[in-house]
């Protein structure tokens, strides 16, 4: 038996009412374990891209892929776990901060290439993007100051290089130049 690992799956779906319910309902009724799901518009009109993180072995991922394909609104499904990719989450975190420790917090924010997007008398709101680990470690460092609120998106991921995340590009005008690697933070 293969070890259970996280798989990142990217799916291109028709932008129709109920598509999210169809996908999430499928995961629920087939007992697939999804730790993470995000959805938004893609480069093609009327198509959305979903990224989800599935827990399971190769067998589970194969079934997830095949069952997703059975949904009429699902156009393409790709397991991009093994691909070189850029994976990001966005988080907003509200931290207790006063005049005494605000500069200390700002230093941390700088190191993590995060931003302070709101400052009040005794709190700051920090916006940070990155992979799960990076966001987790920032949170760990911020914890002693007092975290009041956290909001995180799911993971979105894109394959590096000219290859398309959702399989072959569906339109010719997809801009597929090689994006620079900006991943260099702790």
């Amino acid at each position, binding site marked *: 038996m293969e070890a259970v690992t996280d798989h990142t799956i990217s799916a291109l*779906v*028709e932008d129709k*009412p*109920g598509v999210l*319910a*169809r996908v999430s*309902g*499928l995961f629920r*009724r087939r007992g697939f374990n999804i730790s993470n799901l995000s959805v938004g518009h893609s480069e093609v009109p009327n*198509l959305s891209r979903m990224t989800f993180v599935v827990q399971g072995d190769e*067998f589970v991922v*194969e*079934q997830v892929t*095949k*069952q997703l*394909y*059975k*949904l*009429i*609104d*699902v*156009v*393409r499904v790709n397991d991009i776990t093994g691909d070189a990719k850029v994976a990001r989450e966005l988080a907003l975190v509200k931290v207790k901060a006063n005049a005494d420790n605000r500069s200390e917090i700002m230093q941390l924010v700088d190191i993590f290439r995060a931003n302070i997007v709101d400052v009040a008398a005794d709190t700051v709101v920090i916006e940070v993007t990155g992979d799960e680990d990076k966001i987790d470690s920032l949170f760990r460092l911020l914890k002693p100051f007092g975290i009041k609120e956290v909001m995180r998106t799911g993971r979105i991921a894109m394959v590096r290089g000219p290859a398309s995340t959702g399989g072959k590009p*569906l339109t010719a005008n997809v801009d597929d130049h090689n994006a620079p690697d900006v991943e260099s933070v702790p």
Partner: protein
Amino acid sequence: MHLTGAQIVCESLMREGIEVMFGLPGGAILPLYQAMPEYPQLKHILVRHEQNAAHAADGYARASGKVGVCIATSGPGATNLVTGLATAMMDSIPVIAITGQVPRGAIGKDAFQETDITGITLPITKHNYLVMHTADLAGTIKEAFHIARTGRPGPVLIDIPRDVLTESADFVYPDNVTLKGYKPTMDGNGLQIKLAAKLIADAKRPLILAGHGVIIANAFDELRELAETAQVPVITTLLGISSFPEDHVLSMGMPGMHGMAYNNIAIDRSDLLIAVGMRFDDRVTGRLSTFAPHAKVIHIDVDPAEVGKSVHVTVPIVGDAKRVLHALANEVTPATRLEWLQEIDELRLEHPSDRLRESDKLLPQYVLKEISDVTNGNAIVVTGVGQHQMWAAQAYTFREPNSFITSGGLGTMGFEVPAAMGAQVARPDKTVWSIAGDGGFQMTMSELATIVEHQLPVKFALINNGYLGLVRQLQDLFEGGKRVSVEYSHNPDFVALAEAFGIRAFRVTEKGQMRGAILEAMAHEGPALIDFRVEPEENVYPHVPAGEGVTEMLEGPRPETEGAWKR
């Protein structure tokens, strides 16, 4: 053409070749019904309960190979379709369900008779739609029929708000459907087919497991050609019954929980399973870890998600059963397999589960055997779910392609009455026998009225044992004889009941009366019912206990199990 939504629905149905629909009107769907008189070519059969409309459309689809259509209003009308749609989904039946919905402005406001039927039916339809604009109706219906009947068929529901039916739009029926996310693979991969042929050539103990996909794909000749050319015995799953003539020398009958013992043993010994249009259901495999331990598997299925879902597959072939079997039959080398066929013959002698046990009593198996003999195995047999279903699968000799209609996947009791009605509508030329249990029959018998209204000459064989027989059997065999809620001690007088509906009815209490009653029922022009008061405590054998390997069978009555309930 500028038409109302209701007219657009009717025009679209006609363009899809629909001749008959089963339904029951109500407020939200009313505009559609009011348009129907303009389209007399669309025959509407008014049922007594919407569940039966769905089952009738299902039976119609199975018997005809066409798409069945059912119609219900919003709210309770729509929810009553649910069991019928789930039945069709599990057995891959092309059914279109059209439901009325409250007007657009009232959706989401808990309006009278409002229910989220697209939400409810999400897991039990192949796809569903809520149509919010009259101009979208034609395209949606075109798409729905395409999805229902192609690839692995299935039910599709179209929910239409009342005001979408009354508003008007230009009507243009599209010629084509383009769906980015739906392109079923029909032709099998050539290389895989060659690999499969090689495996078949090398196999010493091959078996074909033929399922419903063979019937849906109309691949009877191709299956037979493959079996005969490569000399491979054919086992048919419950839904695969009548995909291969049962009087053929290579026909083996059913495997699995109540299958022939020799089949389960043959599968256990087999070195190659050629599975066609079947999905290794748990009733076929028993405990998966001990299923077919020596066999490689060729799995042919139009649904890629079925391949590798339950058993490990050596050569997967995704495609339409007819095309793949045709290609494979051309690719295999003709063979003789005397040793293997002889081994199977010996197994049949050692484990004669196809032999009826002898008794002076009216055993239920005898009824099925007698109907089989009288009809020469050429009737369309529709069953409910339970003991009578298993006896029909075991004791009736199916000679005619696509002549067994039963709820396999969902196991829906009560299916036998409305599905037989639908089958008879589809095939007025055939004798349709509804094999009913007294339990299921009472769930849906209200359709007897519809059957009489439309003069459908369905013949009902009520296998009446006064029990929910298969449940009683489970309690007797595996629960120490502790019987809980399985006896109907005050069943109605079914002969008087049938007569009240206007149906000719007979009662048979002895073995000797069987043939006469069956002949008389068949000679009668209209519908008829025979109340067979069968031996009430007869059990279905073989019986593989749930969760066991399929070779762990109870092959026949044992004193310690049979007498258990008697204390």
